[in-house]
């Protein structure tokens, strides 16, 4: 019975977006059918833009969540400090970029060349990767298997790191903006991404920087897949995911593998932060937000599965984009404010059918 209701809900949501929704009338107001743009039939180009919004956001989600999922899949560590790593990585990249371009003026998007984006990106990844490795070696190595205790330890780490980051960043800021206190700053994309791409479909032009975001997500996915499925290290990691004790009994040094996984997983948080900070901003509170995003993606997709992280990212990205664009606009305050409820609905729908997530294996 709940499953019938769940299926009906999904069908209704799809029909609503495709045909039921109406464009707004001339005189304001509206009914439960009124949305900003109307249905996909009324306004195909808005529909396409929303799909692209969802997919490009999914690219970013995947970069961050795949790191979270990799660490969990291999080591059963829920790294609650993943969001704090994101925050720290973003600020480090920002500081490096400011130093490289000469701080003191507000950066215009066109003023940054590719190198001035790639170097901060690399430095942030290395810093956070090494930092994460330190946390793992110091705090998580001696208590393996105690998953709750490890989660509590990473919570403590996240509290300390987030508080310290807010106390010390951003350091270099343009004139007129308050330094420190975790104020919002943006990393700049390389100049060449700052244009619109004409898709020649329905007259839609779409931001190249958002396409870059999606492209980077796909590249991360492909590289991770090749790494896990085509190399010796990946083979050992997958063996470790399946049966840790048997793998180490076969004479493989699983500790080295754990260390590599934690390094890469943490570095991916910084990768995501540089991309996310370029597209939007780095600020106080982003740590909690990205911890939530990572949790939702892996809860939907299933912990420790690369395909799960990808599907979870796409589903959540689409729901996120469509909730904002296609909730009805009746009255003053309705209804896009309520979009966060759909996040819960999505999780509830998935968990009703598969408690372990779409690609997760039963615990």
């Amino acid at each position: 019975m709940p499953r019938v209701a769940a299926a009906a809900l999904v069908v209704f949501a799809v029909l609503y977006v495709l045909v039921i929704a109406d464009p707004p009338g001339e005189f304001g107001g509206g009914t439960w059918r009124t949305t900003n743009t109307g249905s996909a039939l009324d306004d195909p180009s808005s529909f396409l833009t929303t799909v692209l919004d969802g997919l490009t956001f999914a690219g970013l989600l995947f970069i961050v969540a795949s790191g979270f999922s990799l660490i969990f899949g291999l080591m059963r560590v829920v790294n609650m400090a993943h969001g704090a790593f994101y925050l720290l990585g973003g600020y480090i990249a920002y500081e490096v970029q400011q130093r490289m371009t000469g701080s003191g003026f507000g950066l215009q998007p066109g003023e940054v060349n590719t190198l001035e984006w790639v170097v901060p990106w690399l430095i942030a990844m290395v810093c956070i990767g090494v930092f994460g490795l330190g946390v793992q070696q110091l705090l998580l190595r001696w208590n393996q298997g105690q998953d709750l205790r490890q989660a509590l330890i990473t919570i403590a780490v996240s509290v300390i790191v987030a508080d310290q980051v807010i106390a010390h960043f951003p350091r270099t800021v343009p004139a007129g903006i308050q330094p420190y206190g975790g104020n919002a700053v943006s990393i700049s994309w390389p100049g060449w991404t700052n244009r619109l791409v004409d898709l020649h479909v329905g007259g839609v032009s779409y931001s190249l920087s958002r396409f870059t975001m999606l492209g980077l997500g796909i590249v991360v996915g492909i590289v991770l897949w090749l790494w896990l499925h085509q190399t010796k290290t990946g083979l050992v990691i997958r063996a470790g995911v399946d049966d840790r004790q048997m793998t180490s009994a076969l004479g493989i040094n699983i500790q080295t593998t754990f260390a590599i996984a934690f390094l890469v997983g943490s570095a991916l948080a910084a990768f995501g932060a540089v991309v996310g900070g370029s597209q939007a901003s780095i600020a106080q509170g982003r740590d909690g937000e990205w911890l939530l995003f990572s949790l939702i993606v892996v809860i939907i997709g299933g912990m420790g599965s690369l395909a799960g992280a990808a599907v979870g990212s796409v589903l959540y990205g689409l729901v996120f984009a469509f909730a904002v664009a296609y909730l009805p606009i009746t009255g003053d305050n309705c209804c896009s404010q309520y979009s966060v409820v759909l996040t819960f609905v999505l999780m509830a729908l998935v968990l009703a059918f598969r408690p372990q997530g779409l690609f997760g294996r039963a615990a």
Partner: protein
Amino acid sequence: MTLDATKTGAERAIGVVALVLAVLAPLLFSDFWLNSILTQALILGIGAASLIFLSAYGGMISLAQTGLMGIAGYALANMVTQRVPGGETKGLLLGWDPMLALVLAILLTVGIGLVFGAVASRSFGIYFLMLTLTYTVIAFLFVGSVTLIGGFSPVAGVDRYTPGFIGDIANDRTRLYYIALITAGFVYLLIRYLIRTPFGISMQGIRDEPVRMASLGYNVALHRTLAFGIGAFVAALGGVLYAWWFGQLSPTTMGLDATIQLLIIAVVGGLRRIEGAWLGALAFIWINNEVTNRIPSDGLPVIGGTFNTIIGFVFLALVIVSPDGLMGLWDRMWDAARRRGRPPQVDMETPEETAMASSS
């Protein structure tokens, strides 16, 4: 007299002394201590008790309790505050009868708790923790973005509209203290009673052996959902008291910081015994008060940062040294005393590992 009986006796004696002190507190402590430390500790202790109840007897570490407390507070605030000239401006300002609003707020929270519980009822261990954390963050984002029920600015004036039997707690803080004390006592007795009922026993069976209980014919998901509903009821009581105590509700009431704070309180007290809730709350708030006053306005010396850095390190140290908190320390003290009378036993697992394994 056996050692166990001595321990029970000692705990009873401490309990009686604590109760006498708590009842006489308004005579013994300053107004500041009574209101800012003791009342707050009682209220947050109720929230932590709901967390410890679920973890100790249901094997469910729920981070949704902060969210549920916030939901109860927000529901109450939106229902009782009135639309009067020069009055409050945020929220729905329904101006309903405070008694009706109190009952509805608690019922609503329990209802939401049952839905939350049903969705999470087939997730275990660390998955359950993650899922319930998303509940709180979703509730936080919801109240922060929906301007109809308050939006990001606080909904104020809750303490001015209380039911008749609660009285004027906005001015009479001693009265609020006793109300919090009575509620805390009620919660403690309720939980002590519940865990002895057939429902409580099967809940503990499910905590230890979910698969075996399922094959014995128990509806595991239903039991866990109902337990979560009871946890939501306790959290709702805490949330309502918090709303009266603080007078206003803002989204940060259920933010990530507040969530981690409640978890820290529960862990400091000890995730395995209900008494730990209030012990942890008192310790946390006392440290918070002592430390915050001494931090210079430009942050901690040398490393910088705020109270969070200190509590983060304290929490880290505690989880490393004694993961079952202060109550665990107490229990282990007696275990050590017991062992002294006997030949040493060979433990395959260290006590910490056993503790963490049974609570996860």
